[in-house]
């Protein structure tokens, strides 16, 4: 009976997640531009990013034990409004929802959903002639949205700087700080180098790419994508999976994708992307409980939409 109730609860959580969060974000989005209309339109930037991805079944192991083949559905919606405060300072305020849903029909300590809903608060600033920086903090709920408490509230910090050498070469320096993660501080270095008229090596995490300009509106690329996050599973997660130690446990989720794709600039303000390939690495790491699951490679396909207006 308890198992049935758990399944109902899990189903409810899924329904709750899908039907509630997206409409909430969609309500927030039109509300923000309305207030911005009073200001000069050029002084307020809007960013909307939507992503939907599916990864096919990948054989998954929990500490070396086969726990079955797992598929994944990943969704991401992020909206940021960025008003210009001074000539050198832009504010960033918005919301982000990212959700990974996994097939949990198999055995194993696998969360069925990992997701976060967070605010986005930060700023962009020109610190020197050729240096721009971005600081962004995303306070929100990371893990189970059905059991919101201090345990699953987190606020990862992202800091980045770009050195604009010229139109063809820029260097990027980044830092992710998440005190809950196994790796609380994660630095990154990247660059964008347009080394030929049609070719660009856009080596920026989390999406390093080699890009080819098919024409002015269409870009083909071969790239990688890293999705990662730190979440807290539910307070009964361990009980349900026969491992009480995992109740309220922290899990680092990471997947790495590799494949070709296309980016089509449908409008000057709208870019659509489609890519497919292989998810070559995927892990759920309950690092402080010494429980780890990882998957064999699996095919994936994903669509994305980026609007800047």
């Amino acid at each position: 009976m308890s198992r049935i109730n758990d399944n109902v609860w899990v189903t409810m959580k899924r329904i709750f997640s899908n039907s509630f969060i997206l409409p909430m974000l969609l309500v927030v989005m039109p509300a923000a531009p309305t207030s911005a209309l009073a200001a000069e339109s050029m002084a307020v930037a809007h960013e909307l990013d939507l992503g939907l991805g599916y990864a096919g079944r990948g054989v998954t192991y929990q500490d070396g034990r086969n726990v079955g083949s797992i598929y994944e559905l990943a969704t991401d919606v992020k909206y940021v409004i960025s008003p210009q405060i001074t000539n050198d300072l832009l504010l960033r305020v918005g919301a982000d929802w990212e959700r990974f849903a996994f097939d949990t029909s198999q055995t194993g300590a696998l969360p069925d959903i990992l997701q976060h809903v967070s605010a986005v608060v930060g700023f962009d600033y020109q610190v020197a002639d050729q240096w721009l920086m971005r600081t962004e903090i995303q306070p929100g709920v990371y893990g189970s949205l059905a059991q919101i408490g201090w345990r699953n509230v987190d606020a990862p910090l992202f800091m980045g700087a770009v050195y604009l050498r010229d139109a063809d070469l820029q260097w990027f320096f980044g830092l992710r700080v998440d005190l809950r993660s196994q790796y609380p501080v994660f630095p990154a270095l990247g660059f964008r180098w347009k080394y030929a008229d049609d070719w660009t090596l856009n080596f920026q995490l989390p999406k390093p790419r080699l890009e080819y300009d098919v024409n002015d509106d269409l870009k083909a690329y071969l790239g990688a994508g890293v999705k990662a996050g730190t979440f807290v599973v539910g307070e009964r997660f361990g009980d349900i999976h026969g491992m009480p130690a995992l109740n309220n446990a922290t899990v680092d989720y990471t997947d790495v994708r590799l494949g070709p794709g296309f980016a089509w600039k449908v409008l000057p303000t709208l870019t659509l992307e489609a890519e497919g390939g292989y998810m070559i690495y995927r892990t759920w790491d309950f690092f402080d409980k010494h429980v780890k699951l990882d998957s064999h490679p699996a095919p994936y396909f994903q669509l994305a939409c980026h609007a800047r207006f």
Partner: protein
Amino acid sequence: MKQLSIFLIMWLCGAVAAPAPSHASDPLENLKKFSDFQKIDVKRLLEGEIFSQRGPLMNFPNGISTQICFFVPLSPEAVFRLQQSWDPTRCASLKIYASSGLSSPCQPRDFKKLHLDPGSRPVKWLVEKTLATTSGKLELNLTSSDARELSACVSKDSSLNSIGSCWSKLLLTRATAFQLKGLGGVLPYEAEGDFLYPSVQLRSMLQEQGKIIQEFAPLLQKTGMLGNGAEVSSLQPLYNWSFFEANHHATLNLGAVYQLAVGDHYQLLDIDYYASSTYYAAATLYEIWPIRDGKKTGSLVWRGDFLAAPMLRYTKGIERLAYGVIMIQEIKKVIRCFLDDIRTKP
């Protein structure tokens, strides 16, 4: 980040200069009155540092501006003479294929340096866009009438030489109209059924710069830039054209440089009133003073750059900041080439 690489600002012919005054007012005080440079470290300036300021957002959505200030270790007269003979095509990093003055009235032979290199990817882009042009398909800065004529011209012979000749004819027509009527004669472009006038775009950008307009009023009034466009300039400009790479696209432009001595200092206005693609129009204002600090003498040059480009309307937020930064870097590249030439050829 694709948008980050759009600029290559190369309206070079007006660079810097004019005859030097025999007595100079304090140039740094003058600079403070109208520019964004409220404090300049003279020592660093004289050592060769190029100071820059990204302009504020404009109400004109397609516009962006920057201000730059630098020192040239020569008298204004010497700078002027060198500028007249300077060949920017020698500086490979500027990616200028050809640049030349135009006679008045301009002649077909003025464009004899226009050659389309089949091995250049940016040139291939221009050739492809030219061949794809019809009166109903305008991906370049043209009117339907231009497009019809260009299309008819290249359909007779689509060799690179022929395409170059067709472009020469088009440039000749536009340059002639400008020489006859000044800014009032600048022919428009057509985009989505609307006419877009580069002269209107230039005025829109400049009219937002109150202090700069005031500073350059004598020059701008004589060029007709401040009026309604009907009046012909009372100054005789130097006409020019260039063929260069902008945003990895081969681009043709037509320009004019106006010069005026005002009291103890000198002003220039350098405009691009036609560009085949990538941007709509551009203007650069220069003010040049003689400067002295101890035993060191030379010229203090201020330049304000104003660029109208189609994609700027859609470029906001941090991308807009990045555009401004990159625009400054590209302009500095031009200035450094000019200064290097001065050093190597005293």
